[in-house]
């Protein structure tokens, strides 16, 4: 009976669209106060947000920041208008939360340092131990400025103008930080 309907072929649909629609529904539900829907959103986005936080600030603060991002997202859900994908919106929010924390963390750790000398130090230490350093770990060992630019540009796909805006620097600085980060990291490719 059911199969005689012409719907069989049409029921096959593009999976991406499916995910988006299910997510749109979950966002609407979560905005109406549904915790289960919000948990689903959390589960599908947590890896991306956590990885971003970890690369931007290091392992110690990643959990904490991830938590902050989702708490913030919950209270701001009503401002999400569906112009961008939810993931994009959440990512923007995460970058803001992480960068807002950056200053505090930088002071705390006392190693917020833009100077290129530090970078040269990292770059010119191709000892055997360093060679085996995991690429992710190498990113974390970059000085804050270079690391943030590298993460935002090469991993997250932001443009220099946007990065400059976010970090309060000029695009030229963003470009040179990126270059130095890349130069340092090429020793940790394998």
């Amino acid at each position, binding site marked *: 009976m*059911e199969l005689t309907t012409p719907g069989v072929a049409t*029921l096959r*649909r593009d999976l991406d669209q*499916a995910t988006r629609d299910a997510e749109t*529904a979950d966002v609407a539900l979560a905005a*109406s106060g549904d915790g289960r829907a919000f*948990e689903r959103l959390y589960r599908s986005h947590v890896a991306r947000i956590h990885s971003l936080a970890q690369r931007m600030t290091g392992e110690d603060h990643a*959990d904490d920041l991830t938590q902050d991002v989702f708490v913030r997202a919950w209270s701001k859900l009503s401002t999400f208008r569906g112009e961008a994908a939810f993931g994009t919106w959440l990512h923007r929010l995460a970058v803001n939360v992480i960068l807002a924390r950056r200053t505090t963390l930088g002071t705390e750790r006392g190693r917020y340092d833009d100077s290129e000398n530090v970078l040269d130090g990292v770059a010119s230490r191709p000892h055997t131990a360093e060679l085996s350093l995991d690429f992710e770990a190498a990113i974390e060992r970059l000085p804050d400025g270079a690391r943030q630019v590298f993460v935002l540009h090469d991993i997250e796909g932001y443009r220099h103008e946007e990065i400059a805006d976010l970090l309060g620097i000029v695009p030229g600085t963003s470009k040179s930080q990126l270059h130095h980060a890349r130069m340092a990291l090429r020793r940790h490719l394998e």
Partner: protein
Amino acid sequence: MSDTWTNRLSEYLDGELPESERATLEAHLRACADCRATLEQLRRVVARAQALDDTPPTTDLWPAIARHVGVVSLDARRARRRLSFTVPQLAAAAVALTLLSAGSAWLLLRRPAGARPSQSTTTPSPILTNVGTYEANPRYAAAVASLERVLAQGRSRLDTATVRVIEKNLGIIDRAIRDAQSALAADPANSYLNLHLAQEMRRKLELLRQAAALAGART
């Protein structure tokens, strides 16, 4: 290897070098094997960065987040789903709706009208359910409307038998909601009726969500 040129390799790689400099650099590259090697390494760094995998946190952060935002986690809710915070919230809405007329101050505390403009340019056909008075709660109404929109857009992709079954079941839930409302009108303080209404309202959202996901295409 000239530092002046090495320093421009990233810009070259990203296609951000002005035309004139690009030509000069390319000429230089042809003559400089070291520079070519460095460029290749940089290219691999960028490729590596783009191929990095995201990894979830080693500990589940959801319970802490749930506590912060006042949501009970799925595990805890299995034990007692009624603790789900949406229920008291919807129950409060139900009480308020019984006591206050639509458009009153209480309702205006919630999401302002028009805060969630229609996301689509297509005109969704009127679908599935009538809008009852309980949908005067703006947050709830917005959620229902948004789900109905998703469903309307995906409806043609749903099997007609499935559409009919979903419509029928939404109708059944709507009837339960109306029953609970009219009972509440006579007995507004009844906590069972409030919770019951809230449960059915939540159920309607859940069914709409499920239907929207189906219409959207989950197999």
